[in-house]
């Protein structure tokens, strides 16, 4: 961990910021809130059933093993697969790394990896790492709404291809990909190519049935379904072989050594269960809140652009809008002082000169990407939360625009 910037007391900064009277947390992309029921069951698991190590032969081990098994059965039934097909990791990032790196040691004649240009960095970076080991990495282009170019995919996938990885829902712009179409194109070319989908942002937002989807690998992250952070899973279809990528004492699972985070997994499972049980209701609610945000912002604030598709092909929770003539980090900090927490694809937020690779891949100009805000609504939000955001946002944008030397040609809002 880097603490160099903590030479200055952070308390002073927090105090100067002050605690806003009203808060609306919309930064579920970076870190999801947690269901109270999940916290409660985790607390119980820490105290009772999850005390022991689930691979040890004594009472505490058996009880813990049982808790783990029940949690896994629950998740398996929600995504329609068998419990044996679920491998736990300690994050979605690790699940993606396991899918990409874990498949690379398998075959000597498949040296091509295809990932879309808008994948999460936990897919892109491991793929790029494989280039060092002689793999050829091809990034599949996407259109202006983020849909992968299927003709390109079809032209480039062949019997030398090891794996194709495309997220079911894009984390930044909410594009819902046609994974079945991608699967059919790939299988049609060669049955032996592995198909991976990063489903971290798709779970609970679109129906996910592993039997029907019929991919080889799918990644999940607990905090994305409002479970605890630091828990992830990889679905590995029966018969698909992977090599472990970290090594140590194996526990109940073959691909991820170390003691399972049983209370965390139980919490993850509970979150999946809640999302599954209330699926329709949640999706309708989130879609309604999303539409309120998008239509009001686009209608009432000038010089705004929606990033990603409109309507049914957009994730129910995703709002990503570029506010031109605004820099995203300034907007983020200004909104924070009003108690609204969001994130931005600006370069400032990522600490490099380049803004979000996803926004650049859909053809946004640098200055359009710098002014982007990502807001994710959740089942926790109410209409009144969204109204508060809509009340605050126009003034915030107006103030940040008023600071800039470059003003829009027409009079700003």
């Amino acid at each position: 961990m880097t603490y160099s910037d903590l030479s200055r007391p952070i308390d002073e900064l927090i105090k100067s910021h002050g605690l806003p009277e009203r808060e609306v947390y919309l930064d579920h992309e970076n870190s999801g809130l947690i269901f109270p029921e999940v916290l409660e069951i985790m607390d119980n698991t820490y105290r009772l059933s999850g005390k022991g190590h689930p691979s040890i032969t004594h009472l505490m081990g058996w009880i813990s093993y049982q808790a783990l098994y029940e949690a896994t059965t629950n998740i398996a039934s929600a995504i329609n697969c068998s419990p044996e097909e679920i491998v736990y990791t300690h994050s979605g990032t690790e699940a993606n790394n396991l899918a990409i790196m874990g498949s690379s040691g398998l075959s000597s004649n498949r040296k091509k990896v295809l990932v879309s240009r808008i994948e999460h960095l936990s897919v892109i970076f491991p793929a790029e790492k494989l280039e060092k080991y002689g793999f050829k990495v091809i990034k599949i282009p996407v259109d202006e709404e983020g849909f992968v170019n299927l003709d390109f995919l079809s032209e480039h996938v062949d019997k030398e291809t090891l794996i194709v990885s495309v997220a079911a829902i894009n984390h930044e712009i909410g594009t819902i990909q046609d994974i079945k179409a991608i699967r059919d194109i790939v299988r049609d070319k060669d049955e032996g190519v592995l198909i991976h989908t990063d489903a971290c942002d798709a779970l609970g937002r679109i129906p996910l049935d592993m039997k029907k989807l019929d991919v080889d690998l799918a990644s999940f992250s607990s905090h994305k379904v409002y479970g605890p952070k630091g828990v992830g899973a990889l679905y590995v279809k029966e018969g698909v072989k992977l090599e472990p990528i970290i090594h140590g004492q194996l526990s109940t699972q073959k691909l991820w050594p170390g003691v399972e985070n049983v209370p965390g997994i139980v919490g993850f499972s509970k979150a999946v269960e809640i999302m599954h049980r209330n699926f329709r209701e949640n999706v309708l609610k989130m879609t309604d809140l999303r539409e309120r945000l998008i239509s009001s912002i686009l209608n009432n604030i000038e010089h705004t652009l929606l990033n990603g598709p409109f309507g049914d092909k957009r994730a129910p929770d995703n709002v990503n809008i570029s506010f031109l003539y605004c820099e995203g980090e300034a907007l983020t900090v200004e909104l924070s002082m009003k108690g609204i927490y969001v994130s931005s694809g600006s370069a400032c937020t990522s600490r490099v000169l380049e803004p979000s690779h996803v926004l650049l891949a859909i053809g946004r100009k640098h200055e359009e990407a710098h002014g982007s805000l990502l807001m994710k609504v959740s089942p926790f939000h109410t209409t009144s939360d969204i109204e508060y955001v809509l009340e605050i946002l126009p003034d915030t944008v107006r103030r940040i625009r008023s600071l800039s030397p470059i003003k829009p040609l027409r009079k700003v809002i």
Partner: protein
Amino acid sequence: MSSRVPLTYGKKVLELFRNPKNLGRIEDANAEAIAGSLACGDMIAIYLKIDESTEKIVDAKFESYGCAANIAAASILTEMVKGKTLQDSWKISWKDVSNELGGLPSVKYHCGVLAVGSLRRAIRAYYTNRAKPDWLSDELTQEEKHALEEEKLMEVLAKKAKRAML
């Protein structure tokens, strides 16, 4: 690849971001300059009103497109130069700006650099039609070079992005 920690701005940065001092333009400025660009996500404009006989800066204002640190750096710099001679203002470095702000986080040093870069460009602009004083170097200073590099790099990156889309 570097790690990411939240930017622990000093409270001065937050104060100036909230209530920036000297925001705006000077209509009868006798020197002004811009550094950075929209594409960089960082841009500072400095406007100076200079008393021609004493060469003192009587008024300074700024506009900024950028993060909180960028806005605070430009604002504090206009405070620092007011009442100073051009020669003394020329000597202000990005470190002085950072210090005035209670120390910028390292990833935000370039905000101080950009602010000083735009000030020095404005001072150069003032002397384009006047006799150049001895203290004004012909060679670009570190801060001016940095601003130029950032602007050029962005042009290259923007072209690269355009080509990748084709």
